[in-house]
């Protein structure tokens, strides 16, 4: 004899309590939740976060959690990716809106940070020796001597990032597509620096960064 046949009322109450509990409980957070959410990211960023140049989606595997969280918040708030000409950024501005449940943004950032950094092939040809001088002159202050990034100054690591993406972001800062919103404090720091150099100098600096990988 089962519980329901002996006491159907109690069984119904137990079932209702179970269903109510299921409906109200928040989804689990952390790596497992982040991995599940990452299914939304993988069509553009790749299953292992290696990026897809064709779509303008950068490699994100192994980026520090703080940086991924900051950028997701920037995209969500429209500090980044809201410029009408920034076709690629707009895509990410929209996708950041799907992180609606509390803890989702942190969870997916944690998962992205846990992915092993991708092995990326350079597509630009710059003069690393000339680039070293550019890097030492300006970039090092926020991105660190080994381009490993500096959280305190909001400078992300540049090592482990695709060269084409670094150049494109530099151009976006220069054109004012990025780093012009007062909500993006660190972006606003980068924008004036982006006006100091030509594309050629930047490609050289990026070539130098590639040697630090």
């Amino acid at each position, binding site marked *: 004899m089962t519980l329901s046949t002996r006491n159907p009322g109690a069984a119904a109450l137990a079932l209702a309590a179970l269903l109510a509990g299921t409906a109200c409980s928040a989804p689990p957070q952390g790596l497992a939740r982040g991995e599940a959410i990452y299914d*939304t990211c993988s*069509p553009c960023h790749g299953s292992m976060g290696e990026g897809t140049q064709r779509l303008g989606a950068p490699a994100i595997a192994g980026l520090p959690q703080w940086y991924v969280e900051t950028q997701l918040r920037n995209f969500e708030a*429209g500090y980044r990716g*809201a*410029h*009408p*000409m920034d*076709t690629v950024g*707009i*895509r990410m*501005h*929209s*996708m950041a*809106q*799907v992180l609606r449940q509390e803890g989702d943004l942190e969870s997916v950032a944690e998962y992205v940070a846990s992915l092993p950094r991708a092995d990326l092939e350079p597509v630009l040809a710059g003069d690393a020796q000339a680039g070293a001088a550019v890097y030492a002159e300006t970039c090092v202050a926020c991105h660190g001597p080994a381009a490993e990034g500096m959280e305190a100054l909001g400078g992300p690591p540049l090592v482990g990032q695709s060269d084409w993406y670094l150049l494109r972001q530099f151009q976006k800062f220069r054109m004012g597509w990025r780093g012009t919103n007062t909500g993006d404090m660190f972006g606003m720091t980068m924008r004036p620096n982006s006006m100091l150099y030509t594309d050629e100098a930047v490609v050289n600096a990026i070539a130098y960064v590639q040697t630090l990988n």
Partner: protein
Amino acid sequence: MESLIQQASSYAGSIDGVILLVGWIVGFWFIAVEGIFFWLIWRGRAKPGVKSQYITGKEKHLKRWITWPHALVLVCDVFIVIGAAKVWYDIKLQLPEADSTVRVIGQQWAWVFQHPGMDNELDTADDIFTTDTLHVQNNRTYHYRLESRDVLHDFSVPVFRLKQDAIPGRSITGWFRPTVAGTFDVQCAEICGIGHGVMGGRIVIEEASEHAAWIAQNSTSAQ
């Protein structure tokens, strides 16, 4: 329909009229046909001493159960076609002279809008570009030039009863005339990829002075 969703364009009422016409006619036939079905089931129920019989439906008195409703439905179709064709002609085949023109650009997964600046001319230096929000003036006729940067989208403004596909490589011209000031939804009504569900925007319908102030404030540079 107004009680379900506000009408905020000059032609929203006409489109609702067609939907209501179709709804009433189809609703009438649905109820009538269901009623007759159930009546026939009740009428043909098992009765003591009555044997069931095979009916081919070829006899005239049986055939009329098909032919009469068929003819009546065709008559109703004529009303629907006339009503719909009139609305189609008024909205899709007519292009009233524009007071202003905007460009609407769909892309994965947002709407980009190009407004004319102080000169009220599109594609000039003082144009205003925005992402997600379209500003228009109330009681003014607008032409829109609808484009797509990537895949199929559909520019849908429910309060206008406006829904038009955006096709890559084409610039599609249409029109609208807002009739109610306020802020309303813009949506994409064509599945366009993983972010389709978040491809929403807003249309801000302003009175003349408010709109002029917005234009003046923004027409010097792109946002």
